[in-house]
């Protein structure tokens, strides 16, 4: 049946597509010009009307999340497309240990070299999987790279000038969670849950493949980033932070609450240390949980992961990561903080 379907497509589609193209091409430039004119006109007509303070505050936070994430997304997509187009699959089989249980910690530690936040790591991990890297190893890289890279380590040190151990704890706990989740996935994960993005070898030059991969990943991941940005901005404006201070003194609950706050706020991993430092009412362990969970699980990341690897992946991967993040933070906090 699938064979026939494919055969039907090849027979039917080309004339249809030619017809569409000739109809579409002359119209599109005019539609485009119209949209641009409407946007410029709308600025004079609508902007004076759309001034409700709540709407403006929401829009500022929403645009800020999108604008702030875009350079990292573009960087991650560039890197991912470069991996797909220019690095041969044989490189990864040689670079990573053959045994998957050993490959997971190696890939997790390799996360320390990619400077970027979580928006960059999803497309890169998907590019790695497409190039034949064991999914569990790519997932360990996905989780560790936004939390333990040099930029984030320095930002954490700046935000906690009096507590150098916070930096050490964050590094150790994040790496531990990444490796544990990778191993759990290796042991219990099924390949059917994860949609590994297969990249068929492109027919054209590698530059064409590079451009196509970039365009696809940017639009796809960007769309899901907007979903996350919409949710995070709404919660940011609607939920008052005063609700938090009431639980700050309860031992385990406060850790879980800050973990959940990290999920809801979806702050970039390069900035979350400053926010954690401002939550002065909470214990260091609770702040550590905020720093460990934030780069691994948050709303925009869940949207990105569900979009890239499939929904059946996200509903299993996200709770496991969150749970291990909380447990590891409590354990590391007990020992180091």
């Amino acid at each position, binding site marked *: 049946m*699938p064979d026939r*379907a494919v055969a039907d*497509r*090849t027979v039917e*589609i080309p004339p249809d*597509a*030619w017809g*569409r*193209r000739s109809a*579409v*091409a002359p119209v*599109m430039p005019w539609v*485009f010009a119209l*949209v641009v004119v409407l*946007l*410029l006109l709308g*600025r004079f007509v*609508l902007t004076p009307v759309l001034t409700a*303070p709540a*709407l*403006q*505050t929401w*829009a*500022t*936070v*929403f*645009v*800020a*999340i999108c*604008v*702030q994430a*875009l*350079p990292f*997304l*573009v960087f991650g997509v560039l890197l991912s497309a470069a991996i797909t187009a220019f690095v041969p699959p044989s490189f990864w089989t040689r670079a990573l240990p053959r045994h998957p249980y050993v490959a997971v910690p190696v890939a997790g530690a390799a996360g320390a070299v990619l400077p970027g936040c979580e928006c960059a790591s999803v497309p890169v991990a998907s590019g790695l999987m497409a190039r034949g890297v064991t999914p569990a190893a790519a997932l360990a890289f996905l989780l560790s790279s936004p939390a333990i890279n040099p930029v984030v380590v320095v930002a954490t040190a700046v935000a906690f*000038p*009096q507590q150098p151990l916070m930096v050490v704890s964050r590094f150790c706990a994040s790496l531990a969670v990444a490796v544990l989740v990778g191993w759990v996935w290796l042991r219990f994960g099924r390949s059917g849950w994860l949609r590994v*993005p*297969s990249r068929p070898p492109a027919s054209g030059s590698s530059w064409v493949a590079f451009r*196509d991969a970039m*365009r*696809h990943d*940017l*639009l*796809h991941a*960007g*769309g899901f980033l*907007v979903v996350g940005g*919409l949710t995070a901005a709404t919660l*940011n404006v609607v939920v*008052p*932070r*005063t609700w938090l201070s009431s639980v700050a003194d309860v031992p385990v609950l406060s850790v879980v609450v800050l973990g959940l706050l990290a999920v809801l706020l*979806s702050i970039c991993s390069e900035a*979350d240390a*400053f*926010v954690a430092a*401002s939550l*002065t*009412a909470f214990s260091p362990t609770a702040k550590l949980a905020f720093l460990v969970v934030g780069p691994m699980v948050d709303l925009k990341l869940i949207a990105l992961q569900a979009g890239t690897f499939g929904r059946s992946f996200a509903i299993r991967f996200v709770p496991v990561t969150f749970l291990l993040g909380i447990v590891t933070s409590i354990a590391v906090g007990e020992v180091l903080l």
Partner: protein
Amino acid sequence: MNRMSQSLILVLLGGAVLRVTVLSTTYVNYVKPGFRPFLIAAGAVVLVLGVVGLVQEWRKPHVTETVPAQGDEDTESGSTHAAAGDHGHHHGHDHSRVSRVAWLLCLPVFAIFLIAPPPLGAFAARSEEAPPPPPALPADAYVPLAADRATSMELGEFIGRAWGDSRHSLAGKKVTLTGFVVRSSKKDRWYVTRMQMSCCAADAIALKVAVLDAERPPDDTWVEVTGTWVAPKTDKIPNGTVAPELAATEVAEIPQPFEPYE
């Protein structure tokens, strides 16, 4: 979504980012000023990607004659999906086909052009909550203030001196604070406020100082307030519960500063 729409969205998105970074300085409402080069680079990459796609698409009628195999890539009609019979499988595989979620990228573009979001103001800082205590600094980090004239300082420094300075360097000294006006539920005061941002507006925290003895200008007016610190009457109230207070001698309205955040 066909290639033409994909390219259009990329052009709009790249254009909007360049609009707030190159053609204006609105980007300081959303991110740190130092972020500008990265934003310009990202916007340029997105724009170029879109323009290249558009140019290719306009040229295509001539190209398809020679490479007809390209033709079946960018159809996304319902009938094709039904014929393929495997809806989810094709999403995200074929590079020329992108799921409809990409249309959402128009939302930030519309927000930038139509709402033109201003910097966070009195609405974001409306809660009566006091600012979080700043990180403790060693006592010698606070240099003594001039006695004969008013010293301009950031709200963060004022709060740090009010709460974290054991030598009370603020006592009796005139200072000038810059911020916007936020009303208070108490009758005798209003707040001069500045948002403190570490990365983007989503992580901004309101720094507030209560202004006493002065008529309240309308919310969101930018002002320079000159006055002296009012030491708390008891030291039983822990830092971070009530905003520090300033007895104002002069309030001057000013235009919004270039960097709205601290």
